[in-house]
């Protein structure tokens, strides 16, 4: 059997929305609270079913997924404290809508990883595509490589830290949270941001509307030093700080019901 990598190997229902096989494969080798399985011959749905079965029903707290094969939407909807290691790369929408897990991805990730992440930590050893951390609400997302465009678009909380550079429109409509960019930032950094902080260690090609330099405080130093220490990232570079100029939009001008949308 060919490895189930690439969209041509995945079979969907007549509407093209879901893989029909909803049976948990139960192929993991389990040792106490640890488990490991090879995802090479499993579909996206089977991999996610296996993960949830292990974590929610078998009391497993530490899972290793071998050969994830850059399949899309892996590790989504994990809503509990656990450790997950992907020994390879993930495709689009990896680890979306998670709340609590500590994830280690030993490869790269495609578009929109960790979208709507609520809490937990995700460490990616390689690069990440565009829209990483879109609408993220909390937790730490550490990318040791580079990031694509619109990183943290609509970010509502949490921390996105990259050791490399980011593409255009990073922090677009950012509403809360923090971004730490050790490399360069593309055009339109922080465009239309409402709030939040963006730290950049390299050059900024251009600032977006209402994104302005901010005043460095002791709290900024404490935050940067803490994150670099926790994730063993070495000595942090000198950063510039950028914040919202509050000329375009800000919390104070929002109706109460609108304000909740950005909390």
């Amino acid at each position: 059997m060919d490895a189930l990598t690439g969209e041509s190997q995945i079979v969907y229902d007549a509407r093209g929305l879901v893989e029909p096989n909803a049976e948990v494969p139960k192929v993991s080798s389990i040792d106490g609270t640890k488990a490991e399985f090879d995802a090479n011959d499993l579909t996206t749905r089977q991999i996610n079913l296996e993960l949830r079965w292990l974590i929610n029903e078998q009391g497993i707290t530490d899972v290793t997924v071998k050969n994830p094969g850059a399949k899309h939407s892996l590790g989504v909807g994990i809503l509990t404290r656990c450790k997950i290691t992907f020994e390879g790369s993930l495709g689009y929408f990896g680890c979306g809508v998670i709340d609590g897990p500590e994830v280690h991805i030993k490869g790269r990730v495609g578009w929109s990883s960790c979208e709507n992440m609520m809490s937990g930590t995700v460490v990616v050893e390689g690069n990440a595509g565009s829209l990483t951390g879109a609408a993220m609400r909390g937790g730490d997302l550490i990318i040791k490589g580079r990031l694509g465009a619109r990183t943290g678009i609509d970010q509502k909380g949490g921390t996105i830290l990259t050791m490399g550079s980011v593409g255009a429109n990073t922090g677009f409509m950012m509403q809360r949270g923090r971004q730490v960019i050790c490399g360069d930032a593309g055009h339109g950094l922080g465009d239309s941001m409402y709030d939040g902080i963006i730290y950049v260690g390299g050059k900024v090609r251009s600032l977006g509307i209402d994104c302005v330099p901010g005043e460095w405080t002791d709290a900024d130093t404490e935050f940067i030093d803490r994150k670099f220490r926790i994730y063993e990232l070495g000595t942090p570079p000198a950063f510039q700080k950028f914040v919202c100029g509050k000329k375009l939009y800000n919390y104070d001008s929002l109706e109460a019901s609108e304000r909740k949308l950005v909390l």
Partner: protein
Amino acid sequence: MSEATTNIATERHNPELTIGISAEYLAGKRFDYQEDINASADVDLMESTPGQDINWLEDIELLQEDGVPAVFDRYSNSFIKIYFEIPKGQENEVARKVLLKHLQSGNSYGIKLKEAHAKFPQPELGPWVKNSRIVGTDWKPSVLPGWESPQGH
């Protein structure tokens, strides 16, 4: 009837009187940790969150709702109002402890909806409580009594 109880009852029967939705409005009652700082003093913020710092709680700050100190519960889109005096310099820490107490107690309205509406297995009380009961293992679409699909559907 106390003034607080009257206000909640008034809001519940006249929803248009309030713009925001508070946790006590959703629950129909006020919780002890909203009135007593000691009721949430035992919450361990580090232990209750993933990673080596307070993680997602870093974004949780003491806010105000209807002129009252409050902390926002993103799991039910509502504010938890705080009625006790908050010591200066401890505003955010107190807000975080009250929020976690609310979530860990299972009083968040979003948690209460899980039993009936969770579509896949997940811990009832979320990632803040170890060994929480799993819900969502046998989800079935809810059926409105007496409802029939329209002709042609």
